[in-house]
């Protein structure tokens, strides 16, 4: 430890301390500020001459000029190994339930616990033998972790190729026990355990190649999968004013999305929202696997009243854990709520560093930081030929709900899909409040793309007619235009809107979306004859009612078929035959 720098505090300003140091210090190195027996973790954010500015990941209350600071020589890192799944961590990967056991109701300052339990035993099965050559990220053996075969991989920081000298036979081991010994070309030996550490701000690159995302990631949310799809390995963002439904949308996605693993990064938002997830997930059974949803989930939770500096760390910790599971050939979904809070943390620190501010006082490097974060998503082919992906979905909380602000704009430049939530739709309780006219996606939908185009065209026309009717009134609108308007309201009510709290309607699998959407697209294209507008309105009232009942009926019941027939009959009765 003697070669790590030490220093003394010469200034305190909010959560930033300035430290005069001796020895060598690197950017983003971790240091601990001492206060009595307490050690507060901090990260170097700037070095000027013999002074380093550090952001402290805890309250700086009681620190004094002259308090000692110990540097560690390490960058801020995550622990990786079996035992991450089902965990609830803070932004620095402190396990919150174990902190609660130790400290009670409140988060005590300066208490840091190991992220991965040291005493759990895992059934290790070797996959290599002495003499084999390995690269970083290649599998040494496996352990079962819940429903997954968790690969124990050669640490990602290994350079080039190494030779296995010894590997443990099948055994029950802890993460601290050696599982292999390897030698590198220079003859240096290294002992490998199941636990490795990786600096959170550096992406893990141990794969053969990056590919273009192609397969849809089915969220079971109709407006998403059909209209504004997300791809496995893709990126998307959900900007929206407060209360428009960003968090609820992410919560339902975290439940129903068809992926292997979900990492939830609750970044600077309400603690209560995380609590819903962490109390409910253990009770919810994933129909696909028959296991609790918690078994596929990791929660990184740095809520709004927790230390601001750790918000930034939290999204990187989440991305690092996501990449770790991607390296096992799994499909991972990372949901970050809200990226704006993390951007604000950057802004606060930038202000304390007295950097030249950009728009709305955000730092000039905001855009590149956001781009780099979304770049951590992607679909990759691993060295063994299997595929893994990280899909990233981030919410954005624009000031005043106006998308014309730095965080939204920087995000829109880099993501593959945009789910813009609108205040008008959420006020009208049209959930999910994704704006069907403004949103877009570069990925392929789960239904035929031509049908989607027809529907979007109709929605646009319907909206135009709606606008026009506000001016000329219903009597100034032709019956054909009026019918178009009613059709667009119909597809909105029965397809775009979806009841997140109804046991059937909450999740529509891809197969059912194809079936339902095909029928509805047919209705939209059908020309219809009505005696007058009242008759048209009455018809669509009834059709909407029946279709909503249909949405709420399980697909494998006789009732489902009956309702479908009823809808078809109703439409046939008004169909005009040219």
């Amino acid at each position, binding site marked *: 430890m003697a070669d790590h720098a030490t220093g003394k505090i010469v*200034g305190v300003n909010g959560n930033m301390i300035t430290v005069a140091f001796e020895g060598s210090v690197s950017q983003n190195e971790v240091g601990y500020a001492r206060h009595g027996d307490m050690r507060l973790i901090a990260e170097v954010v700037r070095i000027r001459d013999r002074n380093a500015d550090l952001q402290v990941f805890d309250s700086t209350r009681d620190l004094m000029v002259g308090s000692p600071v110990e540097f560690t020589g390490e960058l801020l890192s995550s622990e990786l190994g079996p035992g991450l799944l089902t965990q609830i961590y803070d932004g620095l990967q402190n396990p919150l339930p174990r902190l609660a056991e130790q400290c009670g109701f409140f988060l005590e300052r300066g208490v840091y616990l190991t992220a991965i339990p040291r005493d759990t035993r895992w059934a290790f099965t070797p996959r290599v033998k002495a003499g084999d050559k390995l690269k970083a990220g290649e599998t040494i053996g496996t352990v079962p972790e819940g429903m997954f075969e968790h690969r124990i991989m050669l640490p990602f920081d290994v350079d080039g190729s190494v030779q296995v000298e010894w590997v443990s036979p099948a055994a029950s081991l802890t993460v601290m026990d050696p599982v292999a010994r390897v030698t590198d070309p220079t003859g240096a030996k290294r002992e490998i355990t199941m636990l490795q550490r990786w600096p959170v701000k550096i992406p893990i690159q141990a794969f053969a190649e990056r590919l273009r995302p192609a397969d849809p990631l089915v969220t079971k949310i109709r407006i998403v999968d059909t209209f504004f799809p997300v791809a496995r390995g893709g990126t998307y963002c959900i900007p929206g004013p407060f209360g428009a439904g960003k968090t609820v949308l992410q919560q339902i996605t975290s439940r129903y999305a068809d992926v292997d693993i979900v990492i939830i990064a609750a970044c600077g938002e309400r603690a209560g929202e995380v609590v*819903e997830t962490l109390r409910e997930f253990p009770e919810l059974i994933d129909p696909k696997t028959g296991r609790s949803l918690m078994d596929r989930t990791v929660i990184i939770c740095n809520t709004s009243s927790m230390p601001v500096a750790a918000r930034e760390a939290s999204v990187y910790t989440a991305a690092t854990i996501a990449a770790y599971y991607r390296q096992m050939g799994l499909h991972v979904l990372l949901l970050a709520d809200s990226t704006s809070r993390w951007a604000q943390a950057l802004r606060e620190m930038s202000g304390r560093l007295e950097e030249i501010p950009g728009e709305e006082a955000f730092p000039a490097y905001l855009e590149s930081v956001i781009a780099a974060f979304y770049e951590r998503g992607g679909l990759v082919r691993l060295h063994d030929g299997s595929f893994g992906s990280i899909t990233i979905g981030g919410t954005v909380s624009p000031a005043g709900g106006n998308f014309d602000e730095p965080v939204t704009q920087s995000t829109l430049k880099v993501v593959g899909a945009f789910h813009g939530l609108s205040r008008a739709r959420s*006020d009208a309780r049209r959930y999910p409040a994704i704006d069907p006219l403004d949103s877009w996606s570069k990925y392929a939908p789960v239904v035929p793309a031509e049908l989607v185009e027809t529907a979007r065209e109709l929605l646009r026309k319907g909206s135009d007619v709606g606008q026009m009717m506000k001016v000329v009134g219903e009597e100034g609108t032709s019956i054909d235009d009026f019918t178009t308007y009613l059709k667009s309201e119909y597809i909105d009510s029965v397809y775009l809107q979806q009841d997140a709290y109804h046991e059937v309607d909450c999740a529509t699998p891809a197969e059912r979306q194809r079936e339902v959407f095909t029928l509805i697209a047919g209705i939209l294209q059908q020309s219809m004859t009505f005696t007058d507008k009242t008759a048209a309105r009455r018809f669509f*009232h009834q059709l909407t009612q029946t279709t909503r009942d249909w949405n709420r009926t399980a697909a494998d019941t006789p009732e489902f078929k009956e309702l479908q027939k009823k809808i078809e009959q109703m439409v046939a009765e008004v169909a005009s035959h040219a």
Partner: protein
Amino acid sequence: MHKYYHRVQNIAGNVLTIRAEGVRYGELAEVHSRRGTSLAQVIRLKGDEVSLQVFSGSRGVATDAQIRFLGHPMQVPFTDALLGRVFTGGAEPRDNGPALTDNLIAIGGPSVNPARRIIPRRMVRTGIPMIDLFNTLVESQKLPIFARAGEPYNPLLARIALQSEVDVIVLGGMGLKHDDYLFFRDTLDASGALARTVMFVHTAADPVVECLLVPDVSLAVAEQFALAGKRVLVLLTDMTNFADAMKEIAITMEQIPSNRGYPGDLYSQLASRYEKAVDFEGAGSLTILAVTTMPGDDVTHPVPDNTGYITEGQFYLRDGRIEPFGSLSRLKQLVNGKTRDDHRTIMNAMIQLYAAYRETQEKQSMGFRMNEWDGKLLKYGVRFEREMMDLSVNIPLESALDLGWAIFADCFDPIETGIHSKLIDAYWPKVAPAAN
């Protein structure tokens, strides 16, 4: 043991700078000047330069002021003797009662470990249909009332405080008009609630820094009561004054403002207060209702905007009524599924039809012909406003639900309400009063 410093280097706004050593970040100091003694807090350390924020303001503080550091951060007493009393933002008595010095606790304490939180589960009944039926208030919720200056938000706060069954009420007043303070005191007194109330009151005439302390002091005391098993309701009025006080200090400290002069950490500052709302498993709970006035009636103004991103919904008070649009209790679905099985449906259907009514009303005002459907909506809208929205309506939730069905039956055919067929069968009044 505590040494006096007297070389004040700099005075700007409410912040003064001195040279001193061995000072802790965040600790308190006493500033003695010709004008009297005030508390101050350390807000920046730079070498041996110490910046202090003076609670009673720096007006009249001279360069020869004497400063003594106290070695601890801001504290408040916590005892049952607080009940029935009124204090300043600096926790000094504001009534004629004795100063309390027992059992001092730090303010602005650590946040609750999310892993120890529980899902809120108890409805707070207020007797106001716009709340109970449409936007149910839940114990441990944090909810602001957004209003233009001049709306009756303080009477609304007082009414909720009196009608909800809580053990302790903590009132934090910021920039309160003296009359409003007297209104709260007298209203609570008249109903006998004063004996379970503590007030921390900063009036518009008091030093601005004391305004900054009100939320922390109020919430620290409330948190202790909650830990002691009490159901606590914290009323904060007006948080916009609190934010403006922060703005004032930030500008003095030459911080770069982010949005209309407010500091970049406005969100975090507000959040650390609102997140004190909690339900302690095995103990009590802390619920926050906070008035946020909207300058220029603009919800995108930084204070209401940031608040909306923090709280669990909001009530809009407009023209003396709680607006159905925009108003939202985000926790309502945690409790409104357990009240009556038609609660959610009535809630949604009534709002959707009221929205349709507003559209029709707009068309009518533009002189368009009204059709049969418009006629039904107009009739409905009037009844809805008179019998549900009016704040003088004071009925339990169940009566409000029955009333909802009665209004529907009077105005519409079942199919037009869009209500799921099964509920119609169960609840639609069998003999509808003859239409028209």
